[in-house]
């Protein structure tokens, strides 16, 4: 992800970011192997 996008996400309200963390946790539970793989190895596929 581009740095600009990361910074934009970083500037969101804390409560909104916490909602996204909860979504990420749910995703990780739904797709455990995919979610636990680091971004670099996903990109390398």
């Amino acid at each position: 992800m581009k740095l600009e996008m990361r910074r934009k996400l970083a500037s969101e309200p804390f409560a909104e970011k916490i909602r996204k963390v909860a979504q990420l946790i749910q995703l990780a539970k739904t797709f455990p192997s995919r979610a636990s793989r680091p971004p670099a190895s996903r990109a390398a596929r």
Partner: protein
Amino acid sequence: MAINQPSENLPLADVLRAANGLVTAGLIGDWALGGALAAIYYVEPFTTYDADIFFIPKDRGLTAGIPAIYAHLQAQGWQVEGEHLLIHGFPVQFLAATGLTQEAVREAKRIDYEGVPAKVFRAEHIVAIAASVGRAKDKARIEQMLQQADLDKTRLEKILQRHKIRMP
């Protein structure tokens, strides 16, 4: 919803409310949110599986009053799983603050999270703590904080000097 019922939402407001309750009950002094969730206050959201609450102990004994904290929260329906307490299935660790983390608690930023007054470690303390721990994930956190957080470099330098910490 019952406190021990799992939730799809992250029950951070309940965690912060409980920490305030521990102060009211006289079991801890000051406290602040640290760890990954504190970092997320400053950077993009990422997956984390627990909350770290750092507290200044009232009990100066070896246990720092942790058994009384566990008993108090268990009486309110929290469950114990290993070193964590669970609220709505979400693990929370209560960690006695010392040295650098104690300073981080005392100087933490006051916030309001969904109507709950709370404190969160300042970005500079998060970086200094990560530098002092120095694991791979801490180095990654430092990089992320340097890229995305609005750091006060002077404040960070002073913290690093005061606690004799070197950046990796």
